[in-house]
């Protein structure tokens, strides 16, 4: 059975990776649902404190938004923006 991200898991994953759903899909394909579920929970647990702190600090941007901001080449910025638009 495929893993379905909770909204909290999706938010924390998007804090650290560009493609949260892709991360989960790869983990499940590589390790199977049971182990991938544990790995997902561990990853979220490891990064959620930082996520909460950054959100509380205000003007929060997730990983993709930060990458778009930091990209200095227009063509690459457009590619990242397309990924965001496809969410």
């Amino acid at each position, binding site marked *: 059975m495929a893993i379905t991200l909770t909204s909290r898991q999706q938010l924390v994953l998007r804090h650290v990776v560009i493609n949260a759903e892709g991360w989960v899909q790869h983990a499940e394909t590589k390790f199977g649902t049971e182990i*991938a579920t544990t790995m997902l929970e561990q990853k979220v647990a490891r990064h959620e404190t930082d996520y909460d702190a950054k959100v509380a600090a205000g003007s929060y941007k997730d990983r993709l938004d930060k990458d778009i901001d930091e990209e200095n080449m227009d063509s690459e910025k457009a590619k990242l923006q397309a990924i965001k638009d496809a969410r």
Partner: protein
Amino acid sequence: MAITLHGTLTDNTDVATKDSNGIMVNATQPAFSVVPASAQDNCTGNGTNATVVFGTEIFDKNADFASNTFTAPVTGSYFLSASVTIHDVDANFTTGRLHIVTSNRAYLYEFDPAENISGAGVGSYSITVLADMDAADTSTVTMQLFDSSLTVDIQTSGTFFQGHLVG
């Protein structure tokens, strides 16, 4: 005295040994070394971000490498090193980017191709990082050249990707 650790109480497969000189070997400690099986012709040059194809495994101790991707089996710090050698480069190319892309971040080495190209139009570029990876995180290598046409090759000689779990 030599010490051997087994996987479980019922599994006699050796997972780690320590010999009488104190040298420890862990047969499945994550470590890999891969190279291309063939050249990637005309894969970048116009901004195309080419994922480097590593079709030959020199070793892959815990079977963590597949489809050009290393997947971390456990959370930890991973030493990752890549070298990519490109061919058919000339002065028209003004920007190059070599990345080690991990799930948590992308590590960039940006360069001016014209400054490191041999008379044969060949240049090697390398990047080494200590990457923070969570279990199931992935890592790939990409090469990207800008400002001209899709004519740049990634050659087999001088191209590799290696890594291991540090702790």
